[in-house]
């Protein structure tokens, strides 16, 4: 790795100051499991790395009943997976965390680092999409919120402005009667990037059953399979026909590439398959009257 300097500010304000001072020469580091690898491979060349790990405002996960869960920028993937409120109300997020890399990497990697890396195969992305998360950002222009649907703009691209730091993200409370899951397909059973990942959230609300479905690694941006969601709307026990249609609709919403990990054709077939499985799983979980 080329030589670089690392700053470890103790407050958000001083982090912002450092970022402003160094402009495009600086990069933020949370867990570093992406950024250090990119530096090693000469994909990015920051002269200054701004390590967020000593900033207290970025730590922790808090749950606000009926409102949602707030995940701090420093919350690691393991911390999130083991959080009791996540276990109870956000199974898709928990599945996604547990599908991410392995235990060792998950101890370092952060959930928001995964989102900010904005790599199409990022495992947390589909879960953020179905939960319609909101990102809370601090930067030279002050604080602002970004809807997750507006956040990722392309592979490794997002709508953060220079100098901006994501402080936390809120995933709204999905409702008392909801079920979720994230299914990931990769080349082996651990430590691999998704060839395809599908998250599903099913909610029994006042207006009846709704589904949210998001697909990862199958397009430059996260895909919300709204066509599939519409097909399933109101159906509490979708049969094979409906599942087939939903799967096809999710595949239609996807536009994957062929690369060394998988071909476009395989990815499309797998979006279809995983969508069917994810929806069936959520429906089954709600069937028993059991929330989550």
């Amino acid at each position, binding site marked *: *790795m*080329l*030589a670089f300097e690392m700053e470890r500010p103790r407050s958000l304000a001083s982090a912002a100051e450092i970022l402003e001072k160094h402009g495009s020469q600086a990069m933020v580091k949370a867990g570093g499991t992406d950024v250090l690898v990119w530096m*090693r*491979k*000469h994909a990015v060349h920051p002269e200054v790395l701004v390590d967020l790990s000593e900033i207290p405002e970025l730590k922790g996960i808090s749950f606000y009943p009926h409102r949602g869960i707030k995940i701090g920028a420093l919350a690691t993937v393991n911390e999130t997976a083991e959080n009791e409120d996540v276990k109870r109300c956000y199974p898709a997020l928990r599945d996604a965390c547990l599908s991410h890399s*392995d235990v060792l990497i998950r101890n370092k990697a952060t959930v928001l680092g995964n989102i900010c890396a904005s790599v199409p195969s990022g495992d947390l992305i589909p879960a953020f999409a179905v939960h319609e998360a909101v990102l809370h950002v601090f930067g030279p222009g002050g604080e602002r919120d970004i809807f997750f649907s507006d956040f990722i703009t392309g592979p490794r691209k997002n709508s953060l402005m220079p100098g901006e730091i994501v402080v936390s993200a809120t995933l709204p409370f999905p409702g008392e009667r909801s079920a979720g899951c994230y299914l990931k*397909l990769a*080349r*082996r*059973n*651990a*430590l*691999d*990037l998704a*060839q395809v990942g599908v998250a599903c959230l099913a909610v029994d609300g006042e207006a009846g059953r709704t589904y949210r479905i998001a697909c990862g690694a199958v397009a430059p941006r996260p895909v919300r399979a709204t066509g599939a969601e519409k097909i399933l709307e109101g159906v509490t026990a979708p049969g094979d026909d409906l599942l087939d249609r939903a799967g096809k609709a999710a595949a239609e919403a996807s536009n994957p590439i062929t*690369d*060394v*990990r*998988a*071909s476009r054709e*395989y990815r499309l*077939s*797998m979006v279809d*398959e995983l969508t069917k499985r994810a929806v069936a799983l959520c429906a089954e979980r709600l069937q028993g009257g059991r929330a989550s």
Partner: protein
Amino acid sequence: MKQTVTKNGIGAWTERKYDVEKAAGTLAFTDDLRFGPELLHARAVRSTVAHGEILSIDFSEALKVKGVVKVVTGKDFVHRFGLYLMDRTPMAIGKVRYMGEPVALVIAESEEAAEEGMLKVTAKYRELPPIFDPVKAATDNSVLVHPELETYDHVDFITPFPGTNIGNWFRIRRGDVDKAFSEAEYIVEEAVNCPQIAHGFLEPHCCICREDPATGDLTIWSTAQSAFALRDIVSKGLKYPLSKIRVIAPPIGGGFGGKAGMTVEALCLAGAMNPDVRGRPVKLYIPREEVLLTSWVRQAYVAKIKLGIDKDGKIIAIRNTFYFDTGISAEYGANPVRSAGYSSTGCYYIPNVWTDSYAVYTNKPFGGAYRGFGLPELMGAMEVVIDIAARKVGMDPIEFRLKNILKPGLPTCTGMPMNNHALDTIVGKVVDRIRLNEKEPATRKGWVRGKGFALALKAPAMPADAASSAIVKILGDGTVEVLAATMDMGQGAYTAYSQMVSEELGIPIEKIRCPYPDTQSHPYDWQTVASRSCWSMGMAVKRAASDARQKLLALYAEYWQVEPESITIEHGIVKCRKKGKAEPIDEHIQSGFPMPDGNYKGGPVIGTGSFVPPDVIYPDAETGQSPKSVVHFTVGAVGIDVEVDPATGAVEVNKVSAGYDVGKAISPVNVKGQIEGGTVQGISAGLMEGMYYDEHGKLLTPDFTDYKIATALDVPPDLDAFWEETPEELSPYGNRGVGEHSMISPAPAMDNALFDALGIRIHSYPLGRERVYKAIQAKKKGETDLWEYPYALEQSYKNAIKEWK
């Protein structure tokens, strides 16, 4: 009468040497060695085209980087190296032959400066058309990877063909195949292919070289499996006396063949021997991303096998055509090609044999030694074709195999009689243990289950005169030092040698130590490869230990005035029951014994032992025939029980049973470890491993982001490793090689299991999820076979297949 008693001799389950240091993290690997501020760091600049003339290399900007000391290029270090064929230069000279080939070496005061310098070197090329497909390269000479092939030195037992891309052509001509085919009731002709695969060792290559500016003496610290072979290759390449080269091989973090011979050391020497650098140690650490571009991997292959079978199911003829894709160098890869060739009837007796086994140059990173050495390639194809043939003949695949099995005494394809073995017993056990004959329902909802089987065989693949020697020193307190220049890279050689020495000396294993190799202190050993160490070095260690014992007994006999035969060594205590003597070994063994005649006798007791296989004869170049082509064959079998998710192509292994006839398990804990480890490595290779390139020859799987090997979660929960012990005649304790064998046949067993589960034959490794899914889809369309070819090369393969038909 046996004069030694020990609890941890031959066949004992013991603790393993060096496990404590490894667990504690205190064992120093090459990268852990410290050389102080004298140390310089080197980094390779690599070609950006697959085939081209080098027009210019501009390193002026690199020299401006603070800390950069020197940049050397191929022209500054014109030496050819190679174990069997000297076709390799550490840096490209005049021409690059693969994308990623080193073209310059930046030497700097720090790793960071070397890296920054490396990024600032630019080279210009005039591109030449590359060739990537081995079948095309072998059959059409429009692109020559090595037009200078005829000028390269090589050993007598390989046959390069100048004017072509063939680095070695090994042949078997036995009997009359044409006649046998014309008489055959069934003809089966099938092909199987597999991409290059990588060893995946944990520790990347690392080397430090220093030249003494006053004497020219070279010291090399390196991640080397074979300190002496490395010294030989460097000596021949540089035309340097052996005595002026010292190789120190610290513990290595895995090798699997990838650190045999000479790997990165010449590249490091190009820096360390430069007149502007000489005197300072230069370190070359190969980053993970560059490992596969710097030294060899396992060769890709396309194997075509034709069998002629009579009406009773006896195989009467075989015609093999093996194209090994050796990339740009066959310096080492020439020999697995030979090894596959002289084993090319597998575990079967076939009277008429025609084999052409080719090492084919292409513009890719190069192939060489990898656990199994030609045999996973051979058996990966052969055991699949045998399965297909059995079904075509209408026989049960096990029955078909047993009918044609190479029984002890029957000739192999070179004419050499097969050694004793218990393969039929092993087959029976594997069949029982995975209940091969029972169709069982899948344990996962919606999945399908299948079972597969394959045989394995391998001989140590080495020159006829691969020798070993060892020294056993009994120290002044009765502890022992064994100098045996085998590299213990986890296979447990030092534990096995300690057990041998314990057996021969009656000294407990805790008192026996085996240090890592240093050519300055250790006596010669050819290489740690070929599953030869417990056999060949075992002979030397046994001889050295018996020599030490005889010296010890003679000294005590005179000291106590008894017959040497009346003395025993029991758990480190020297005893003479007749005289009522029992003394622990003490300083006398080192400083001499005050004998009754008043004189001191003895002095340090040092046992020595040497060994060379006495009777191996190279196969005839034209026919491949030889009365003793190899020292012995180890045989075995693997059975696999798998399940497939038809909707995704995911494969899970329920159970594996693998057994080998090891002759004698010297160190059972290590034999078990080798069988388990190799089985997992074989499953991994069969299920997911492959190196892929884009159409320009750029490696797309340089590191573990995309080069996937099995993790603990991909390994079967139930792995039954066992062995039989039919003793080998010429052997220290009846033992045969077993280190590589377990890697050979899990992949074809898996292929056969998938056929059993799915009813379609996959002819291309690896059997990854996407490929298995494709096969399932193809089956739905009525296909019976699935062929694919590595990635961008697919089209040329399709053409090649057409040409074959």
